[in-house]
């Protein structure tokens, strides 16, 4: 019984939140890595692109709610998602046409691209704050819990409860669907293959008749979809605040580089690695050891590797360790 209790405890506090947060990071990191792989720069405006997409979703959600349209048990935001995606694609393509295209044609160095993306970051930051304000917004509606901790306890008779929020399940399902489609597209379809070819060797891809404009367009579309989906899932699970989205850029970057920049599958694993180490290393295992250790040997301290204040710092530290020991990332990225 104690053993089961300890397993449930870990599931409730580490595995379920880890999978949810990891999925959100993974989606974001795949977006960053695709931009890096195809367009060859680190996009600092990505966090704010996520915020922009989520903002549109929230606005449409509010509009739908005012008309009395909801999805019943599911959050209305899922219904608003397509609109958010379309507008985010429009914004991405607008910035690509007005800003990035010029530097791409000039073949500027990566630093120039980073600097320009900083400019776009400032602009998007302002746009989001002007339209929706800097405050915390909770736009989750529908059924909150699939299983409450108390219900679980009553059902199983265990001491520990297992709570399952519907956002967590939605996050997982959406991530599985999005990633399967994406990886199918990249690995099996002709367009996806040409995209990977372009990312691998630009000149060779041009020689074999791949249209770079089409590839760039496609990349921005995929990236915008990923950004909006990741942003909306994060907002549903926690809440929407523009500043948090900007801050999330940092663990996303960490996940991207840890997984090997330019490598989508690596970014996927990187997201989970970062999420699980952030949660796993800041969790206090005292209760867990109470269950599995024999009586009299229970620990007196919290058994916590580092305090939760350092949650973000962990992902940064992992990144630095990876940069020192395996600069190409754990899953061999493309270039350094």
């Amino acid at each position: 019984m104690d053993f089961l209790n300890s397993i449930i405890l870990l599931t409730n506090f580490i595995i379920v939140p880890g999978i949810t947060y990891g999925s959100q990071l993974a989606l974001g990191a795949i977006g960053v890595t695709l931009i890096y792989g195809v367009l060859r720069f680190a996009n600092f405006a990505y966090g704010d692109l996520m915020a922009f997409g989520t903002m549109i979703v929230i606005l449409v959600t509010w509009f739908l709610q005012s008309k009395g349209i909801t999805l019943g048990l599911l959050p209305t935001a899922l219904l608003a998602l397509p609109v958010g995606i379309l507008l985010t694609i429009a914004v991405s393509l607008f910035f690509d046409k007005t800003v990035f295209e010029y530097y791409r044609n000039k073949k500027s160095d990566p630093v120039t691209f980073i600097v320009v993306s900083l400019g776009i970051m400032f602009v998007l930051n302002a746009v989001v704050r002007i339209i929706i304000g800097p405050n915390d917004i909770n736009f989750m509606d529908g059924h909150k819990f699939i299983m409450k901790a108390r219900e679980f306890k009553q059902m199983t008779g265990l001491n520990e409860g297992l709570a399952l929020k519907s956002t967590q399940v939605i996050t997982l399902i959406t991530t599985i669907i999005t990633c399967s489609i994406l990886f199918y597209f990249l690995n099996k379809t002709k367009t996806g293959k040409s995209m990977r070819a372009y990312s691998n060797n630009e000149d060779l891809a041009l020689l074999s008749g791949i249209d770079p404009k089409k590839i760039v367009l496609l990349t921005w579309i995929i990236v915008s979809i990923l950004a909006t989906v990741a942003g909306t899932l994060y907002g549903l699970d926690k809440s929407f605040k523009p500043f948090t989205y900007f801050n999330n850029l940092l663990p996303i970057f960490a996940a991207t580089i840890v997984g090997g920049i330019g490598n989508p599958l690596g970014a996927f694993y990187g997201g989970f690695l970062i999420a699980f180490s952030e949660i796993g290393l800041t969790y206090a295992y005292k209760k867990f050891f109470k269950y599995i250790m024999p009586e009299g040997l229970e620990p007196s301290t919290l058994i916590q590797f580092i305090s939760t204040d350092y949650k973000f710092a962990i992902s940064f530290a992992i990144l630095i360790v990876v940069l020192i020991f395996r600069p190409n990332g754990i899953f061999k990225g493309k270039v350094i």
Partner: protein
Amino acid sequence: MIKNSDFKICLSVMTILTILVGFFQSWGIALSMLNLCLISAVMAMGVNIQWGFAGLINFGVMGFLAIGGLATVLISVPPVPEAWSAGGIGILVSGIFLLAVVFSVLIINKRIPNHKYKNYFIFVIIILSIPLLKFIAGPSISKIESINAATSGFLGGANLPIIFSWFVGAIMCALVAFVVGKVCLGLRSDYLAISTLLVSGIIITIVKHEEWLSRGVKNVIGLKRPVPYEVDLQNSEWFIKLVEFLNSSKLSNVLDFDERTSLLNQLVISSSGVFVKLCFSLIFLAVVLVILYFSEKALNSPWGRMMRAIRDNEEAAKAMGKNVVKQHLFIFMLGSAIIGFAGAMLVTYDGLFTPSSYQPLRYTFLIWVMVLLGGTGNNYGAILGGFVVWFIWIQSAPFALLVINIFTSHLDETNYIKEHLLNSVPYFRYLMMGLGLLLVMRYRPKGLLPEKIIKN
């Protein structure tokens, strides 16, 4: 220096902006804007040394500014004896432990020949040392933080004049930059940008959460000043006489004695604020000029030419026998030290240290906008950028207010859109910054005052 046209542009922009604000708003506002412009100029020069001279992209500005700010606390605040007696020994022991870990890692790294598992071994040592460190320091930290938690709850500082802290902040930053540089400088430009950004995130987390050191989110207020306090000025004989002398024409118009005294009192109070700010301005101006002088000297010396050579063609510089790695590390430390100096100046001017206010947008990317907009590789450009960008940053809210009012003048006061727009006025500064940066990068990619290479 005087004959330089860039210098003239800088000086005239500085003067015109300050005078404009002084006439249209108030001299107090103008001087505080000038002071922050000067501090920004120092920050921009620090970044410019790294980016403009050497091509090193450092997005960790925020972290170094915070270290400079921490230095003001550690130097100028009086020590808390109770805290020292309660947990001082524990902190010292854990400090020694930390040093021991660092040295053992260094020795292992140097002495043991390249073995397959060496890196893993070092990794394990570092990982194990963190819980151990927590175990050693934990009890004393909680003791220190529990002493007068509302007013102190930290170890305090060295109770020295705050000017010292500027130099100490610079030295601390140089040391941190040494470590960061050793780890990150070998990386390619965009990796360097991301990793320095993340390192600054770690620094901010430490400053924010190690309350025994910095009081963390509880902030340190009432820091010392290198200039007199307003209250002391208002009570000093010479200052009242000075104000009386400066405003003699205004005062002589008032015949009634009581009225005259009250007017004089008002003038003394308002001008004491201006006087304090003026003192700050003079000190900051001196700092800017000194750094500018040395920076210009360095830029035009053989060393500066070598740095440019390394920046423009690293391989060629290497082939000429220049030690690129060493020079990069050195210039990274130098620039970070200047940034730290500016961070200490900023906290001194504010009079309070608030770790939670350090955000990358304001303290990293804004400084970068200054450098890029002003002119990469040109010290005068950095100063000009510091001025112009800070001016826009401060004045864009009133400007946006004006524009919104003009465009929505036909709308009702309670109109939803108008109210919403008026509430979001502070965020128009981000928009201005972004658009400014994009426009400059497109049409003047070298900045307003481009780099000038003197050809002999």
